[in-house]
């Protein structure tokens, strides 16, 4: 059999490896965590869900809907992720910034090139909550728009938390002096959405985590994320990593923008 990329671990297994390493020399109770399914442990960030739902502070009915939606979605979560590490370099091609990986993959974007900066390595990353969430969201949509909206918000919060968890685990695997930068996805800045196709081929997302791309470069299942994470050398200075996502973003009229940065 000839599946192209067998050099991939799903997050599921990645987590096992990390926990196993951390647990060396610890108590047996700690080791027993290895048997737990990682997705049952995605912490639900209700405040983020309420923000995505555009609910006002103190809206108890909205909060109740978010709770209901979470209860209805949580048993259908089947999150998976895939990640590959590459050496990379930045160059100019016909006046446009490019990022070249050591397997000859090239991404074309000034914003991405700026994002990579001096980093010599990066991760390509894909994550999804699974297609059963799509079924559950659609089930909500036929009965109530309010609940469907809440379901969308809950799922958005869950995929973000899941990606953060994955990145934290990847960071934990990096040696000292290496730091993972925030996630940069196709569609950000001038990075064309069409380059999702390249990313999907290299990561083999369909086979590894069941994440596919439609003709028009939309991800299915819908609640999914793909991204690049640069691996930077840290030398004691504060990196952009500590700056909030919202502050970094140029879209100042975004409805989701945290009030603090308005």
């Amino acid at each position, binding site marked *: *059999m*000839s*599946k*192209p*990329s*067998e*050099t*991939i*671990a*799903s997050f*599921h*297994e*990645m987590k*096992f*490896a990390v926990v196993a390493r951390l647990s060396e020399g610890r108590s047996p109770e700690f080791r027993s965590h290895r048997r737990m*399914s990682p997705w049952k442990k995605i912490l639900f960030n209700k405040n983020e869900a309420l923000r995505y739902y*555009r*609910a*006002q502070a103190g809206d108890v*009915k*909205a909060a109740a*809907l978010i709770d209901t939606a979470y209860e209805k979605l949580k048993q*259908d979560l*089947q999150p998976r992720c895939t990640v*590959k*590490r590459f050496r990379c370099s930045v160059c100019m091609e016909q006046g446009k910034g490019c990022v070249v990986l050591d397997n*000859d*993959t090239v991404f074309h974007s000034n914003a991405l090139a700026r994002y990579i900066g001096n980093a010599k390595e990066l991760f390509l990353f894909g994550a999804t909550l699974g*297609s*059963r969430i*799509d*079924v559950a969201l*659609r*089930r909500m*949509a*036929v*009965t*109530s*728009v*309010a*609940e*469907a*909206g*809440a379901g*969308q918000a809950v799922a958005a919060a869950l995929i973000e938390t899941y990606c953060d968890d994955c990145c934290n685990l990847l960071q934990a695997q990096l040696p000292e002096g290496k730091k993972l930068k925030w996630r940069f996805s196709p*569609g950000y800045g001038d990075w064309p*959405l069409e380059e999702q196709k390249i990313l999907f081929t*290299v990561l*083999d997302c*369909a*086979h590894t985590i*069941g994440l*596919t791309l*439609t*003709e*028009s*470069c*939309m991800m*299915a*299942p819908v609640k999914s994320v793909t991204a690049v994470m640069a691996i930077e050398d840290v030398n004691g200075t504060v990196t952009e990593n500590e700056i909030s996502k919202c502050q970094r973003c140029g879209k100042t009229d975004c409805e989701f923008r945290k009030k603090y940065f308005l």
Partner: protein
Amino acid sequence: MSILDFLGKEILYFDGAMGTRLQAAGMKPGELPEVWNITHGDIVADIHASYVRAGANILKSNTFGANALKMQGSGYSVEEVVLAAFENARKAFRDAGRAGQSVPGVSEDKQFTALDLGPTGKLLAPFGDLQFEDAVALYAETVRAGVKAKADLVLIETMSDTYEAKAAILAAKENSDLPIFVTFTFDKDGKLLNGADVETAVLMAEGLGVDAVGFNCGLGPDLVAKLMPRARAVTCLPLIANPNAGLPVEKEGKTVFTTGPEDFAEYMLDVYKEGASVLGGCCGTNPEYIRLVAERTQGLQPVQAAVHGCGAAGKEMQTSGIIPADKNSTAFCIGSVTAVTGYGAPVYFGKRPVLIGERINPTGKPLLKDALRNNDMDYVCRLGLEQLDCGAHILDVNTGLPGLDEGATLTKAMTGLQAITPVPLEIDTSNYEAMEKALRLYNGKPLLNSVNGKKESMEKVFPLAKKYGAAVVGLCLDETGIPDTAEGRLAIAEKILATASDYGIQSKDIIIDPLALTVSTDSRNPAIDIAVIKALKEKGIHTVMGVSNISFGLPNRDGVNSTFFAMSLAAGLSSAIMNPQSDRMMETYRAFCALSGADEGCKDFVARYADAPKTKAAAAVSEYTLYDAIVKGLAEQSGTATKKLLEEKTAPLDVINNFIIPALNTVGEGFGKKTLFLPQLLMAADAAKAAFDELKKQMQAGGTESSARGDTIVLAVVKGDIHDIGKNIVKVLWENYGYHVVDLGKDVPAESVVEAVEKHQAKLVGLTALMTTTVAAMEETISALRDATDTKILVGGAVMTQEYADTIGADGYAPDAVAAVDYANRIFREEKE
């Protein structure tokens, strides 16, 4: 010789991984392994040969991704890479023999090459954009190439979606006579990515007529051994296990597999003991793994057939009297079960009685008729969800309505339901064309309603049921009508079972309906049914009955129905087509389960009724006016308040104009001024919808024609776009303002939008797109509409701006749903003025 001559009679060995070894030979991530069949044929052949020398007698051709989608732009056609792949495999068998090494168990007549088919890499509609028939066509092309290359069998592998597996199996069946093996990739809880469990995947594959079924990739042999009994419990097919070399673990950016060859072979012995008779490996394995597995299991006999009492081993057990001999020996399998599936968990017959919700049937249901005529599948879905909430296990789907294309309506309703629930459906139609369309597009092993004892019915229905792997309801009637004796009906049942067997359909897949006729015309009717149920129960044949027909023409039908239901259940009825929204029927059912021991410790009964209020609360009196209920977003109160207004003889139009619309206007204004926010807007929309539902119900009951609808608006998410939450919100709001919204759904081609606008003479079209990549499709749709119609076009969606809307030639842009309402109100008001 065919592989079928050996399958299930002795252990057969697949090879191990190809991809890892190609990578070791220099293949880069992102490169197509299939192209290596041509560019690096010697390397591929060498890898194959190393497996042959290790003891593999089935090679998987290096064609995992050889489909037109993946080969696009590779410079090679599907056929080219498939033919080259088989050249390499044959060369490997030759080379291995020439090398003169001892190859245990691999004699020349036992060398097989499987046409390997992996997933398409696309998600099938409705969750992705690959249509089912397009998936069938993709696989068909590869299968035809495999036939040309003289493949010995088809191996459909690494399937993580039952629907895609079904497409591949149909393609293999329709384009070859080759034996078909299917292996699925489960997670350690025994679930596929689409949620189907082991039993469901195996039952569907068995129904579709594959020759062997099993596991590959994803898990190591230890975990596969744990899942194997679940497959063994539901099928007597030979079982396959091609596990990974344990779970992959990420180490310094590289993936390492955790199980070494020795441990792998040790675990594979467990896999064999649990029933697998075709053994091999997947990711992370190499010839050493296969060599050790072959060595450890050499000379062992397959256990699966013996367990089930089928095949040669089963025959031997019958002859020696270990298990009872059976008359219909071809269909005999003591371990087989009667079950139907969607794409979640199966529903079994013969355990706890099965409830089939009967309400998706337009007979006597004006609102459903209306919904079917208007393609309102959300209404059908709601009917389904209500029944599931009440406790139905399976949903009957009947969309037969004069003047409608039943094939189209039935498949729309069915696929609509399958998009929101994984439970099994009962396809209910007497239109053979509609029946085939629905069976084909169904995801899982369906229940088919129905066949009867008429020659024509059996000749039409059984070939379809066999091809698509359905369990079939057999009605006790034939050319002579419905016999008025139990003996007469049993004779028809026997005829149906015997004819089914001639078509290769096992008796476990026939569920007999004794047919309930009303007691009001002949008091012997119930006794006939009870006698038929009892007699069939004794023979191990399952039964189903539409219970409520018994009370036709009588008052207090619920009382008669529930008592007859209890009598039938006591006689051994396996399943009932009934209304799960009848409390009395559900009480009877739950009490029966408790009393018959099906509900152990009465757990479910207690859980359901322990905290139920002693007396029914008086119908809640709404403290809110309809206006307040909508503004505050209280759906239930909104319904109650509407009811009250109608009882006070308020005209329906006044309810809309004096309450619903002013309330929605208030909410819309608040939203515009940012004193109200999205959740409140949505809750108000739900509340207004509840008011409308109540209005419709009352109007139907009062005989008012519901055709008096408002102006028509066509609404669609453009081609290529699969995000529809925004569209759904706009739809509900427009409907709340009384507009008749023709919702075309998502991923809608321009020509469908044009067609709908023309058909409905719509003065307004709403189009949405989420991403930059689909704005082009929106532009195309607009241009097509301009060419054919003079409709107004309103656009919206995350990526849209006023500027963008102007550029692509839209008439209007709505940044949110309230703006969409304002625009529609303006357009239609101007029109009227």
